């Protein structure tokens, strides 16, 4: 009997050292209904998986809440502007004007970015100048930006809490929690991650379901030819159907900069004049073009790369024959390149009923 404590210690040690994964906590946290992203076949086969934060999984309720918030002017100070005001579905979630006008009638200095395939932005740097990391954080800024919604998150949260609908929607999406800007932007990020465009004519061609015209095929060749368009180094290729590298480049728009772009954020002069490569999907719906919307047509864009390049210390090395303004594409190559680029547009995306105003 004198050894009894010794045996008890051994038994306790045995229990503690066992490799059990069982938990003794019976608390089951609230869990909304999972709704994983529906990854298009072309993406599944060719590129790596989308970025879904572990602390913000896609759910039916979260996406629904995010969609409602995205289209709701409650976010703006005077209840007149929603995210969708400058990111309209019919424009592939960008603005048809060069600079969007905020609630105070003040224009910004950048063209609204289109929104699609955002979950495949692997570096998660958002905005033209990459100033925000993660989609969740991106959604925070426009609400308080004085030339956009010009509101405060305190006001937004107060309105949401007093709403007849939102408390229940937040409850359904995130459980019995207090409404916060973090949860609001999580929901919006969930909705934005559902904005997937992968059904252009070229997508169907890649899947063997459509045929390119002679012009479109030649345009693809111009796009992929390093001696002609050489677009593929920055804008993807048939094996990278995002049609962007989501990286920052100076594409020769200006000899001097009034907008430093990435350089303003990084503080590195080597980044001056660099802006994110936008996707070339849905160009049929996203005019005007470039970070400042300076080009109204695709013809102007192509002419820029062909003969309008401006030299500057940070111009991308891939910009060729800069002293001649560019590679001087033939009129036929320009026309064919345009035809190919338009084959990347996806009408089913802008008409998707899931993406329209609730």
């Amino acid at each position, binding site marked *: 009997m004198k050894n009894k404590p010794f045996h008890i210690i051994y038994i306790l040690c045995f229990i503690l050292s066992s490799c059990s994964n069982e938990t003794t906590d019976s608390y089951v946290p609230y869990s909304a209904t999972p709704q994983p992203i529906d990854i298009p076949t072309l993406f599944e086969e060719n*590129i790596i998986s989308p970025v879904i934060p572990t602390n913000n999984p896609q759910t039916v309720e979260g996406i629904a809440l995010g969609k409602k918030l995205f289209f709701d002017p409650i976010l703006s100070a005077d209840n007149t502007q929603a995210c969708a005001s400058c990111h309209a579905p019919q424009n592939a979630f960008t603005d048809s004007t060069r600079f969007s006008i905020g609630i105070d009638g003040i224009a910004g200095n950048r063209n609204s970015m289109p929104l699609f395939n955002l979950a495949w932005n692997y570096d998660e740097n958002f905005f033209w100048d990459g100033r925000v990391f993660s989609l969740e954080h991106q959604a925070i800024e426009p609400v308080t930006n004085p030339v956009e919604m010009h509101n405060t998150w305190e006001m937004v949260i107060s309105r949401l809490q007093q709403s007849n609908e939102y408390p229940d929607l937040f409850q359904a999406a995130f459980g019995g929690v207090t409404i916060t800007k973090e949860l609001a932007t999580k929901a919006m990020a969930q909705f934005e991650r559902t904005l997937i465009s992968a059904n252009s004519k070229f997508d169907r061609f890649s899947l063997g379901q459509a045929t390119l015209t002679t012009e479109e095929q030649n345009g693809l060749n111009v796009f992929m030819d390093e001696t002609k368009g050489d677009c593929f180094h920055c804008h993807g290729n048939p094996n990278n159907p995002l049609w962007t590298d989501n990286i920052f480049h100076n594409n020769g728009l200006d000899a001097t900069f009034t907008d430093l772009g990435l350089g303003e954020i990084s503080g590195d002069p*080597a980044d001056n004049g660099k802006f994110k490569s936008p996707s070339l999907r849905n160009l049929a719906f996203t005019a005007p073009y470039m970070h400042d919307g300076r080009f109204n047509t695709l013809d102007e864009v192509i002419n820029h790369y062909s003969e309008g390049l401006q030299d500057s210390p940070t111009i991308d090395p891939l910009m060729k024959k800069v002293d001649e303004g560019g590679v001087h594409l033939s009129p036929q190559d320009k026309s064919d390149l345009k035809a190919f680029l338009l084959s990347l547009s996806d009408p089913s995306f802008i008409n998707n009923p899931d993406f329209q105003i609730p």
Partner: protein
Amino acid sequence: MKKIAALLTLITLAFSCSSDDDNQPNNVPQNVNATFNFSHNWDGISVTSTNFNTIQYINANGEEMSIEKLRHLISNVTFHKSNGETIVIDGYNLIDVTNDSGLVYAPDIDIPTGSYENVSFTFGFNNDDNYNNNYPDLNSASWNVPDMMGGGYHYMQLEGKFINDADVEIGYAYHTIRAVNLTNAPDLLFQDTFFIVDLGAVNVSNNISFNIEMNIAEWFKNPNQWNLNILNNMLMPNFDAQVMMYENGQNAFSLGSISQ
């Protein structure tokens, strides 16, 4: 009671969550891990992304130049035994100096301890790996070669600026791929430009790290003194330029050191 205590001790030990180890009785492991560290220099002066974007290097042809982007790919690291047996690490590693990624390659494979008469890797992809696989990670990195040039993947992308003979700063894009002659396209003629880099003999006795160095200046030096004034861009479809790059690349890699 002593028997019960002994039994409990044995059970405790048996169920403890310790990981197994491969140590032999003499403490020499049977299998070890191999790590490959990649560093870059310009004729001995270290080059990292912090040195990018500034004209500070002079190539063999006398042109002052900078580096703005450097990515290259290695594949199929192979351990060669003297009896002819090989252990091939069937995989690849994209080294992205610009973004400081891929500088350490630690493949998940056990390497048996012992003597090897050579360790080697392939710069780029051999033709089988280049054409017969679709690599989502490399596609996502826009590492592809256009189908009209045979498809497959880049081996290296080196870009930057240089001062040309007219004293003007212009860009260069030194991209290496499998050499392809497009003269009679769509009938394409190829010449292999991947190459094997030998690191030499090694006696593996423990987890081992190979410190591999690339002298970037060599790409412009030997045997072909590179003239950036002539060859600065549109080099992918330039068959002769690709062959020259292949020749110059033979001397670019070396084994800096081994630690284990």
